[in-house]
């Protein structure tokens, strides 16, 4: 075999391997989604959304964890989004060339991928221990802490994309900086900032680890933020590991609901993001 055909053969081998890698990756996506849909649909019925979680061995639904998850997620977004947007605003507008901005960006990127169970421990230490009991409030703060870095990152990125001429034009007619930011740059970057919030919701709606020892769980209907609160991921965790078949079936159905919600949010965020910054 001469040198040229050896090179061609090597080329062919590595390229086939990389095609194989792509097939391998897509195979898992297909495998996971298909079993999820198959097992989840089997248990999906109206009663899932109208009945409470059952005791072992009887039929029931997921109403209380679904409501719990909605409350926890909403509150987390309400807590995390303003802080995230304000911090992102400082980094892109007031403190764009500050030294501290570089440090915050670095730290924020680390928080973005820090293990979520650590956040759970942190909130346990600063809220659950002083309060003396688990609570929905602590759970939503834990999720809120996870929201912050996601929103900071997208807000900063999107504000940096706004052309400087727009700021200069507004400043030239005498608008103070807060006015420029709130009326000009926020408007231009609005879609991007909303994308960030959607991504944050997608991120926290499946989070389990930070809720395990903050919101804990609740077998019953509870909307009291000062008491343990059920959530879909924690119920899935508990039910899937139980030996009861009814519970396992409900766990699959819950998993399907979460995945559907997360995928819808990510696709929505992607569709918005492709519109980009309005100019």
């Amino acid at each position, binding site marked *: 075999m001469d040198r040229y055909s050896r090179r061609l053969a090597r080329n062919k081998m590595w390229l086939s391997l990389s095609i194989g890698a792509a097939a391998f990756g897509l195979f898992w996506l297909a495998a996971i989604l298909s079993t999820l849909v198959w097992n989840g649909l089997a248990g999906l019925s109206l009663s899932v959304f109208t009945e409470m979680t059952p005791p072992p061995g009887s039929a029931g639904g997921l109403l209380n964890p679904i409501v719990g998850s909605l409350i926890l997620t909403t509150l987390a977004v309400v807590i995390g989004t303003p802080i995230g947007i304000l911090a992102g605003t400082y980094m892109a507008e007031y403190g764009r060339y500050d030294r501290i901005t570089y440090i915050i960006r670095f730290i924020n990127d680390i928080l973005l991928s820090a293990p979520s169970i650590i956040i759970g421990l942190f909130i346990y230490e600063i809220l659950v221990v002083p309060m003396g009991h688990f609570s929905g409030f602590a759970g939503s703060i834990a999720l809120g802490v996870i929201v912050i870095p996601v929103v900071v990152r997208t807000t900063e990125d999107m504000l940096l994309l706004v052309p400087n001429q727009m700021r200069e034009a507004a400043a030239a007619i005498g608008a103070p900086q807060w006015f420029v930011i709130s009326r000009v740059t926020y408007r231009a970057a609005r879609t991007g900032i909303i994308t960030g919030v959607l991504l944050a919701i997608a991120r926290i709606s499946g989070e*389990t680890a930070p809720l395990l020892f903050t919101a804990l769980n609740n077998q019953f209907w509870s909307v009291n933020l000062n008491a343990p609160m059920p959530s879909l991921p924690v119920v899935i965790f508990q039910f899937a590991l139980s030996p009861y078949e009814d519970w396992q079936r409900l766990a699959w159905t819950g998993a399907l609901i979460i995945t559907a919600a997360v995928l819808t949010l990510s696709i929505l965020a992607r569709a918005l993001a492709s519109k980009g910054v309005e100019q």
Partner: protein
Amino acid sequence: MAALTLGAVEYVGRSKALKRFIATDSFFRYLTRAAAILVLGVLLGVFVSLAIGAWPAFHAFGLDFLTSQSWNPVTEKFGALAPIYGTIVTSLIAMLIAVPVGVGIAIFLTELCPYLLRRPIAIAIELLAGIPSIIYGIWGLFVLAPFLQQHVQPGLIEFFSGVPGFNQFFAGPPYGIGIFTAGLILAIMVIPFISSIARDVFETTPAVLKESAYAVGCTTWEVIWSVVLPYTRAGVLGGVMLGLGRALGETMAVTFVIGNAHKIAASILAPGTTISATIANEFTEAVGDLYTSSLIALGFILFVITFIVLAIARYMLSRLDRRAGVA
């Protein structure tokens, strides 16, 4: 709206309006600055609160905590070696699989895939990254573990039983759950991370560089190996470290399939535990201050390890950003 508010300025008098503008502006500046500093505060808060919570355990066991294997809630003797070992070995297995596959996918997407399919496949793989880890966990427990137990592990055990040196790594009954299964699940979770970052950095390679290589007669593989990969080395490494950070700290997917056994077995098919799985499994049931403190100490160790890994990842990636900014 804007014009209206500015128009009203004439009414209240120029100096008064100016004062109000300055006051609002400094208020807004300090408000945003406070929020930005809060981000630093969160990290500091995590560090300090975990250190305080972990202090009783570190104080009671000293350095033995890092080197002892015992985990006995009855006699209150705790050591972190088994979870640390499990965390590192599962992540290692995950990276061994995920790095070649992830980079391979990125090569496929940037150099080989027909244009029409690039976006859909890239989106599909990124969606895989967005699926919550608990879904991977439940899938691993009900689908992957039984499959491995029946079809893969017996074969592995038999195949390696005659290979000296390797037989101890693949020994024992096929449990299905264990270190190996956890590593595999982690690999599946990490692949999309690595491939999407690798794809992004591959695309920063200037077309001129690649075209010159093609012009002197390089094959596609030679262009990738000698031009694209050297040019993007730091970025790919950053992506790998980011994936590693995720694998080290991943909780739910691992907790389902690891078996939660506090021992270090030579065989990677045996059940084990990781730091995050131990915390998730035992924290709410931990009685006694020393037990709770030991679990928080585990969390502290995990935090320090992932912080270092993620810091290296971000450093690598930021170097690449800077170069892309200059070019």
